[in-house]
């Protein structure tokens, strides 16, 4: 933010001097985030686990945040830095909207996030990377879009589905087999929870649905009507029905061979 860098540069994330360190700094890391588009919108979801090395740092962390009325960010990577980045990102979008009297375009929001990730490059090279997934409803084009990033701030638009974080490899595999372009909203929300289940199945840093503690993935939907986060009841319903099926079929739904 231009005003902040003139006025109070010390509160911006990119402007902190870091002492040289040896090895990797231990800090809680967030893990898997997935997103899927469907006609009329986009779904962004994340598991609830934060890990620090081989320890589970937090069981019920929230990693998906609304960025503004029509977009959301899911964060993977160093949790503390990522949450701060999201906070600043939310602030920027709101500030722009109030000062200019109009919203940034979705493209503009995605570019802005890209710059913010790039300013974190120094930290990323010390092992404190932040790699978010950005999803939003493009009001001008009338459809949901997903943007993924790398640690250097490189931005790419993903068609259909995307995942980031340590479990993303497995989640992407699951989504690849389940995705088609005529999903309904409820199919899309089920699909992301299936993908997160598969990620948790094979990646120790990703948390599956925790029935005993009633901790379920955070699922958000962005459509023409704006951002909506599924209530605990709704997401527990999805997670439980998936769990029910997996008792018979532990590997989940099967795709056709040919």
């Amino acid at each position, binding site marked *: 933010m231009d005003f902040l860098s003139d006025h109070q540069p010390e509160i911006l994330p990119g402007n902190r001097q870091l002492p040289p360190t040896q090895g990797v700094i231990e800090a809680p890391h967030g893990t898997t985030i997935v997103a899927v588009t469907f006609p009329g919108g986009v779904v962004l979801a994340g598991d609830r686990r934060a890990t620090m090395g081989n320890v589970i740092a937090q069981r019920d962390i929230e990693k998906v945040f609304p960025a503004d009325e029509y977009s959301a960010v899911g964060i993977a990577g160093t949790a503390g830095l990522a949450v701060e980045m999201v906070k600043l990102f939310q*602030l920027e979008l*709101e500030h722009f909207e109030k000062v200019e009297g109009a919203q940034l375009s979705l493209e503009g929001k995605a570019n802005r996030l890209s710059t913010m990730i790039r300013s974190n490059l120094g930290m990323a090279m010390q092992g404190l990377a932040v790699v978010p997934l950005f999803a939003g409803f493009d009001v001008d084009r009338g459809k949901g879009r997903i943007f993924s990033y790398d640690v250097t701030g490189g931005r790419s638009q993903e068609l259909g589905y995307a995942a980031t974080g340590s479990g993303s490899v497995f989640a992407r595999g699951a989504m690849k087999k389940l995705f088609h372009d005529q999903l309904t909203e409820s199919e899309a929300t089920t699909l992301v929870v299936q993908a997160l289940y598969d990620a948790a199945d094979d990646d120790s840093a990703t948390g599956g649905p925790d029935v005993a503690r009633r901790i379920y993935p955070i699922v958000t939907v962005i459509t023409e009507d704006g951002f909506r986060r599924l209530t605990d009841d709704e997401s527990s319903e999805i997670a439980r029905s998936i769990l029910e099926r997996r008792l018979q079929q532990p590997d989940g739904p099967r795709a056709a061979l040919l």
Partner: protein
Amino acid sequence: MSTPFYVSPQQAMADRAEYARKGIARGRSLVVLQFADGIVFVGENPSRALHKFSEIYDRIGFAAAGKYNEYENLRIGGVRYADLRGYTYDRADVTARGLANVYAQTLGTIFSSAAEKPYEVELVVAEVGDTPDGDQIYRLPHDGSIVDEHGSVAVGGNAETISTYLDQRHRDGMTLAEALKLAVQSLSRDTNGSEREIPAERLEVAVLDRTRPQARKFKRIVGRQLSRLLEGEAADTSSDGDDSDDEK
């Protein structure tokens, strides 16, 4: 070299106040009223792009009469102040009282600084509370003083006549439609007592609605929703509920 005439400080201040008041009086008036579910801002504004009312923060709205470039400057300053506060501390730590103080300081400094001309603006800063008792409305005249207002407030050219009119008719717990109609009636009274019609297209209306589920309570009322509220009879208060969800 000529010697400047001596002007007494009293005279100098009186001249500056006179200058500012005249500038403000040239602009159209606007009113801010409390109603049951929040605070409504109503003003006559032929322009759709240059707003007199604006959102500052979650619960805080801003209204200004006078010179556009001067109050726009103050508005952006206010948005910056609020956003910076909210980012550094917490969203709950941004208050209308704090903002009004900052505005008062700014306006006061500019008013008494001999190097600058006084700002020809009069501001209203309003914050909606969880209950009507928690609502706060501050009026900030050109000289940097703060007036704590209740119920209704008018600023701009015809402010005195309008506020007398409003004081007599405004009561607590009005519906949005009632408050809006009262505001339009008060605005359509000219200085000489005659009345004129203000069409809905020339009105700028915004509310701070405490019943809105989002954290940001500020909302503009435009188009169909506005004409429905203006036309709807007082008995038509039952539709108030769905009005609030209509927009955005």
